[in-house]
Structures are given as structure tokens and as C-alpha cells.
């Protein structure tokens, strides 16, 4: 039976499309169906929700897969059990004012690039791209612009030349006609172009000790998310929009649907993370952070597919 029916789950920015499956699972009642009562705590950012998990104030987190790798380096055993987003969902674009001069990643030399925060995944992705294009990350200057309206303001005011950001900021900027996209990892094509394959983004992860102590609870939560992914795979944008709270619509349903359509491919359809995409993720981190030695990371300890397998078996 379920060891811990009352769960607390952490997330860093629940209304973001990045975490759409979480909101859907909640709104569709899938947690209840599994006999779980989930209290969702929203944090100032992904790193804060991870800290809450390690500090023991939340039981589960929907956050970046990358965290599981970094935590292994910090001797914290954190494991993902299901993938929610298979592509990072990050877009690198340039301001329309600079669209003529910056046509590819290689042109970013000397540019002022806005990222959500220094050290965050948007920051790392640009650095990765630059290194891959034979530049040093020091060749551009990075400016933390935050995750909300301030990012839009920075672009509008011409404070930054380029931006590496997520939805809904990207969709909003596109909608305003401020942005020319350089790299789009929301789509299969875009992601393959950068990584040559998948690169897992949002996952559901736990502490290893929690998984051991509460296997049934973890199973139930995995089931709920798996069901959500399946629902999402078939859902129309209209259905999605109708399911999430109206406030999430970015003030305008059309914009929301546009944003959803742009991101749609990034959501995982089967929840699995394969060897190749794990390596791809590790490669991304190791390239940009010299402190992490890829040889010391045991990728098999970052993802535990057993729950997903059972969830699949149960549904099919």
C-alpha cells in the first residue's frame, strides 16, 4: 500500500510551460486517482526546489534532469524516475535590431546575452553552443534578466543583443515581433541540430533514500505522470488551455495556444531517458563546467526506469 499518501512536491515556477505536465496531472485529478494528496510548493527557481528536497522539506521535485548529475558530483543521491520534457525547451534568439549582424551562434562574439540567471540552464546552453562553435564563454557578456516581465523589458529596451530563455518569455517576444530565433530546442529538429539527439529537461526526481523507503508512493506518482503524458500526447491545444487555470493564459488565450504549439514537441511521450540522451546531458554540463569530471559520474544512478516500466505495464 501507499506509504506516504500526503506528499509535498516542489517546483520552481509552476505556471511555466516547462512544467505543464505537473499542472495537468493536478488539474486532471490523476494524483487523487492514485490515492495521493499532493501539496505543490512553488519556489523562486529550480535550484531552490532542489535545495528544499535535499533539506528534506519536500519529498519530490519536478526539475531539471541536469540536477541529478550535478548532485552526484556533490555526493547527493538524487534519482529521476520519469522524464517529462525530452528537449531542453530553451531558445536562443537575437533582438530584431541585431538580426542583421548576428545570424548564427558564431556571431555572438562580443554580444550582450540575456539569460534567466547566471549559472542556470539557459546560461549553460549558450556557453555550450559557443564552445562548440570554437569560442570561449568569455567572448560574450552574460546578463541575468530574471524569468518574468523583466526579461521582456530588457529586450524591449535594447539592453541586450541576444537572449537565451524559455517560454512564455520567448513566445511573448516572438508575439511582439522582437525576436529572431537562432537555436530552438523546443523542437525535435532544433534539439537534434544541437545535441544530435534528445536531451532530457524536466523530470520527476526523488532522493534515493525516499525511493527505497516509499516504493509504492513513488510508483503511484510515476503512474500519475505517465498517464498525464499519455493524455498530453493526444490532447488538442484547446483541451490543454481548458485544463490549466485561466490565469496561466498569459492574458490572452491565442498567445497561450501559440506558445503551447511551439513547445508541444518538447514534452516526453513515453517518459523514458535512454543512454544516449543521458550522455548528451552529461556532455553539456561537463563542457561548460570544468569542475565536473565525466569519468566520475555514474549515469545509471541518475535515472531509475523500473517505476516507469511498471507504469507502462499497468496502463497498457
Amino acid at each position: 500500500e501507499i506509504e506516504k499518501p500526503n506528499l509535498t512536491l516542489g517546483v520552481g515556477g509552476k505556471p511555466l510551460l516547462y512544467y505543464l505536465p505537473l499542472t495537468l496531472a493536478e488539474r486532471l485529478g490523476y494524483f487523487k486517482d492514485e490515492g495521493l494528496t499532493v501539496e505543490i510548493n512553488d519556489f523562486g527557481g529550480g535550484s531552490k526546489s532542489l535545495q528544499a528536497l535535499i533539506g528534506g522539506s519536500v519529498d519530490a521535485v519536478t526539475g531539471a534532469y541536469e540536477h541529478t548529475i550535478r548532485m552526484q558530483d556533490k555526493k547527493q543521491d538524487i534519482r529521476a524516475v520519469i522524464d517529462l520534457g525530452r528537449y531542453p525547451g530553451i531558445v536562443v534568439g537575437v533582438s530584431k535590431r541585431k538580426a542583421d549582424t548576428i545570424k548564427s551562434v558564431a556571431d555572438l562574439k562580443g554580444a550582450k546575452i540575456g539569460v534567466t540567471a547566471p549559472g542556470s540552464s539557459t546560461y549553460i546552453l549558450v556557453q555550450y553552443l559557443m564552445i562548440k562553435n570554437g569560442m570561449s564563454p568569455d567572448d560574450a557578456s552574460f546578463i541575468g534578466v530574471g524569468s518574468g516581465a523583466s526579461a521582456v523589458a530588457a529586450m524591449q529596451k535594447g539592453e541586450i543583443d541576444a537572449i537565451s530563455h524559455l517560454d512564455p518569455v520567448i513566445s511573448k517576444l516572438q508575439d511582439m515581433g522582437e525576436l529572431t530565433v537562432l537555436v530552438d530546442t523546443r523542437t525535435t529538429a532544433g534539439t537534434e541540430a544541437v545535441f544530435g539527439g534528445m536531451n532530457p529537461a524536466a523530470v520527476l526526481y526523488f532522493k534515493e533514500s525516499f525511493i527505497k523507503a516509499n516504493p509504492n508512493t513513488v510508483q503511484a506518482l510515476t503512474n500519475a505522470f505517465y498517464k498525464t503524458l499519455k493524455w498530453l500526447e493526444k490532447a488538442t491545444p484547446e483541451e490543454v488551455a481548458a485544463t490549466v487555470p485561466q490565469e496561466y493564459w498569459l492574458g490572452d488565450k491565442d498567445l497561450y495556444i501559440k506558445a503551447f504549439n511551439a513547445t508541444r514537441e518538447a514534452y516526453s511521450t513515453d517518459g523514458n531517458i535512454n543512454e544516449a540522451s543521458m550522455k548528451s546531458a552529461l556532455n553539456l554540463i561537463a563542457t561548460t563546467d570544468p569542475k565536473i569530471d565525466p569519468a566520475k559520474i555514474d549515469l545509471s544512478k541518475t535515472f531509475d526506469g523500473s517505476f516507469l516500466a511498471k507504469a507502462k505495464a499497468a496502463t497498457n
Partner: protein
Amino acid sequence: MKLHPARLLFLQVLVAVAALAIWHIGATVPIGGDYLLPEFFFSKPWDVLARVVELFVSGTIWKHLWITLTETVLAFLIGSIGGVVIGFWFARKPVVAAVFDPYVKMVNALPRVVLAPIFMLWLGLGIWSKVALGVTLVFFIVFFNVYQGVKEVSPVVLANARMMGMNERQLFRNVYWPSAMSWMFSSLHTAVGFALVGAVVGEYLGSSAGLGYLIHQAEGVFDVTGVFAGMFILAAFVLVIDWVVTRVEKRLLVWRPQAASEQN
């Protein structure tokens, strides 16, 4: 130079109306093709008001308001009591004060945002981690003022009280405390606002309810109307707490002559 209460209210409403009018015009009338207060960042007064009403009518706000209120009041109480106690202690023990002085100042300079994860680690995700954040703001404001307030005690009044044979506790009750009171209340007026800021920032950084949570949710999806509605409620809210503080102040400071600077 006292204003009639009705006239005062009228002037206050006038200011509010003027502010709303500027806001409205800034948000809806383009000046040189640009809006002074673009709707995307500032919403519109009417929308915000409508949202506030909606929040109250639908009843969703009550739960959040209650949580934030609890946090604010707790932060305010714990922070000010702590500030008063430590402030007095330091003021009466110059050696302690001299030794800890640099550390107090150092701690006061730490950005609370960074401390949030530590509070969550120690105090969990419930209200207490938010209270702690509020306390770190309130405490210092009250502390510095009480510390100074005690040092400003009139030397003659103090000498007289000591000659009467008052012990430390009696001196506290009869001399230091009443004398430092106007300093303390001055700091409390600032602290009320900061207690709320602490609670809301705490919620903003990680929570599942409260006004800060509401604002954070709204911010993530560019729901400026929601953000402003939240701030509005918050601001109205602080007036209530401040009113309580002012009442207590008036009660406790009956003995004061009218401020000389206000007479004419």
C-alpha cells in the same frame, strides 16, 4: 493646524484619485507613440480593481490572506520583541555591545534572499521559514533604535531613579522602557512594512499559499493585473496592522506633550 477629519479624508481620497488618474492615463493614452506606463508592465487601474474585487468575491483570497497575516504578525512580534530585548541588553552592557557590534552589522548586511534556503532547511516549508525571514528584517530595525533609545535616556532622570534605589529591573520598567518608547514606536512603524515584506518574499521564494505565492504565480505568466492586485491587497493590509500599532502607541504615550514642532 489640526485638520478636520472629514477634510483630511477628502484630501487623502483626492491623492488616491490623482494617482489612479495618472496611472490610467499613462496606461491608456499614448504619448509620442509610446505609453508612459505600458499595460504589459503596469496593467490598468480598473482591471486591478476588478481583480481585487473578484479575489474577494470568489473567496480565494481569504486563505492566502490569513496565512500571510499570521506570518506577518508573528514576524513582527518575534522580531520586535527580540529587537527590544537584545537592544536593551546591548545598551546596558557596553562590553557585550562593543564585542558583538561588528557581527550584528555584518549579519544585517546579508541579503535575506540568499538565506531563504537555510531557513527552509531548518524550519521547513511551513509558515516558520517565512516568519524567520521577516524576523531578520524587523529585528535589526527595532534593535538599532532601541539601542540608541536607551542611550538617549536623560542623565538626570536616570540618576534620580538610581538614587531612589531602583534595581536593574525597576530601572527598565520605570525609566529605560518609557524613555526608549518613542524610539521603539518609530522603529515599529518601519518594521510593520518590513515584516510583511519578509513574509511575502519568503512565500515568493517557496510556498504553497499566501499573498507572495499569489504574486509569484501571477508573475510567472505575465499576469501583471494579478501582481498589482496582490500588491494592492498587501498594502491595504499593512495599514490595518499599522493602525493597531498607532493605537497602542497613543495609549502608551499619553504623557507626552504635543510635539513642539507641530505647534504654531
